[in-house]
């Protein structure tokens, strides 16, 4: 059977976290009562006109620059015409042939590099609440429209078909999500719909030029569903082609309950959106000041930060990824690193992404700054471990105490009597006693099973409440048993 290669492109809608809607002064809605955030403009009353939200443009430019797009010197708004109850004017104000931004890219470190086809500004539709066929409210098959969401600013990002697997699509979307979140333009919540992703999927035989018919997948409102939906569609298409069939172009709706894809009946109509330039809005020609404002508002982007962590600090990719994905943690790490003279970045990263994360999760804290731990204390603690003046297990106890109650590591070590046993005479005595208490282990070690030494180490540790240096204990055991 032929080897098939998936070809995937994504269309992402991002709700911008401005204060007001795209074209009117209504505040954005966060679960308010239906139809409490509306005005004549966003209800499409006769005679009303749109006015473009400056911050939405600013956020749009930030996204364009973050995705390394070319910003159009003069982009236009168009009307996209279709009838739907959630569309109050009978058209959506969007951008069409001259969008805000073209040809960018986002490279997933260690993953795919995805070209961005375009990014444009538009307004969101309202929300349709289906009352159902047999609801208590009279009127079978009726829906109710809530216009609170209508007119929320959106940026639509369209990628080139550069993705080759569902996992890549997920990785890409995750990085895009982290990027959008960290540049501060959206709260990117997939479940709540502030980040929405559709996928265009086709497959072709390996080495084949050109693309085959694609289908459009909708409603994948989590990363897991995105991955599952795309996987299911790839399998379905491969099955069709392999059995001599033909994939037809259609829109498929992903059902998260069954994991199945069902064709959406087209909106009662062949699509003919009759785009034409929006006469109520003038062209958008970002000035040098607007571009500079957008550029200077951008923090270091996640992909760049990850590369820097790997390059400059020699961090392993997984630890770097955690620090980049968890913005405040990464910032805490860097602050801590800056205070610790001679500290090993990889060790600090391991402590930050391991023990510290575990403690923060316990406390339900999102920002390490909200715990009692200071970046300096973390650095001091890690330096103590590094310099063998504190054992690993004692350090864990100290860290827990610091995140809970604060203070500096030296005082906690002192107060809890966690100073390592520095006197080698005392340690030797303890090791000798432990050897006596573990004859079975000694036997095994003599027979070549060196890992049996763990039992003896354990006894020492128990005896010292973790204050002994593990590697020193190991060294003493070997010497005593004469197996060096």
């Amino acid at each position: 059977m032929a080897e098939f290669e998936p070809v995937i492109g994504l269309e992402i809608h991002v709700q911008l976290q401005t204060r007001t809607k795209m074209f009117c002064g209504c505040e954005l809605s966060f679960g308010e009562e239906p139809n409490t955030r509306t005005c004549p403009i966003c209800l499409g009353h006769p005679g009303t006109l749109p006015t473009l939200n400056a911050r939405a443009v600013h956020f749009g430019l930030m996204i364009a620059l973050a995705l390394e797009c070319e910003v159009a010197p003069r982009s236009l708004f168009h009307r996209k015409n279709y009838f739907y109850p959630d569309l109050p004017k009978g058209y959506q104000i969007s951008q069409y042939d001259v969008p805000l931004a073209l040809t960018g890219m986002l490279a997933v470190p260690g993953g795919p590099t995805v070209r961005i086809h375009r990014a444009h500004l538009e307004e969101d539709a309202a929300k349709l609440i289906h009352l159902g066929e047999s609801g208590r409210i009279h009127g079978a098959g009726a829906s109710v429209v809530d216009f609170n969401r209508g007119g929320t600013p959106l940026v639509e990002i369209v990628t080139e078909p550069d993705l080759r697997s569902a996992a890549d699509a997920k990785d890409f979307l995750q990085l895009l999500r982290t990027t959008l979140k960290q540049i501060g333009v959206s709260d990117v919540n997939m479940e709540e719909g502030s980040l929405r992703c559709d996928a265009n999927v086709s497959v072709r035989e390996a080495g084949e030029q050109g693309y085959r018919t694609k289908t459009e997948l909708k409603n994948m409102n989590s990363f897991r569903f995105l991955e599952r939906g795309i996987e299911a569609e790839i399998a379905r298409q491969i099955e069709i082609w392999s059995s001599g069939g033909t994939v037809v172009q259609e829109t498929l709706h992903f059902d998260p309950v069954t994991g199945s894809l069902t064709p959406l009946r087209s909106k009662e109509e062949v699509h003919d959106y009759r785009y034409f330039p929006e006469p109520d809005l003038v062209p958008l020609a970002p000035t040098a000041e607007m571009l500079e404002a957008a550029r200077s508002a951008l923090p270091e982007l996640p992909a760049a930060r990850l590369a820097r962590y790997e390059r400059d600090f020699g961090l392993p990719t997984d630890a770097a990824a955690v620090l980049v994905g968890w913005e405040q943690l990464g910032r805490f790490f860097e602050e801590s690193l800056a205070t610790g003279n001679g500290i090993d970045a990889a060790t600090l990263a391991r402590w930050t992404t391991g023990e510290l994360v575990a403690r923060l999760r316990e406390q339900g804290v999102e920002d390490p700054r909200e715990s009692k731990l200071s970046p300096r204390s973390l650095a001091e603690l890690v330096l103590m471990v590094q310099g063998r003046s504190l054992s690993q297990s004692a350090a864990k106890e100290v860290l827990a105490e610091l995140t809970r109650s604060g203070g500096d590591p030296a005082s906690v070590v002192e107060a809890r009597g966690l100073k390592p046993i520095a006197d080698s005479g005392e340690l030797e005595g303890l090791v000798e006693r432990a050897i006596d208490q573990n004859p079975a282990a000694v036997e095994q070690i003599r027979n070549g099973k060196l890992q049996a030494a763990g039992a003896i180490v354990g006894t020492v540790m128990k005896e010292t409440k973790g204050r002994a240096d593990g590697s020193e204990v190991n060294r003493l055991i070997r010497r005593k048993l004469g197996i060096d």
Partner: protein
Amino acid sequence: MLFRGPKRLRSPTNIRPMIDRDQVLHVARLARLRLAEDEIDRMSRELSGVLGHIEKISELDLDGVRPTSHVVELENVLRPDEPRPSLPKERVLAYAPDPAAGGFRAPTPGR
């Protein structure tokens, strides 16, 4: 000397329809207009007359002419992102032909 003036703009009476019955029905569907039976043929006739006249612009040489969609030469007209009061819900829903459950009721699409 005579120039082509408004008099020539009378509807031609016997030209081939520029827009036939099927097209009328297609366009009426796009525009969500239900046409009565007699309206369909009349629409085809009337629109064909107007389009027959409009067609004359196809004779003009417009190569390289930029399209005008705005006559004002404004750019970057932006509104500060500052909230303005929304309307009270009661006021908004008072306009609804069929209010229900705090919203505007309509038949569910696609049925």
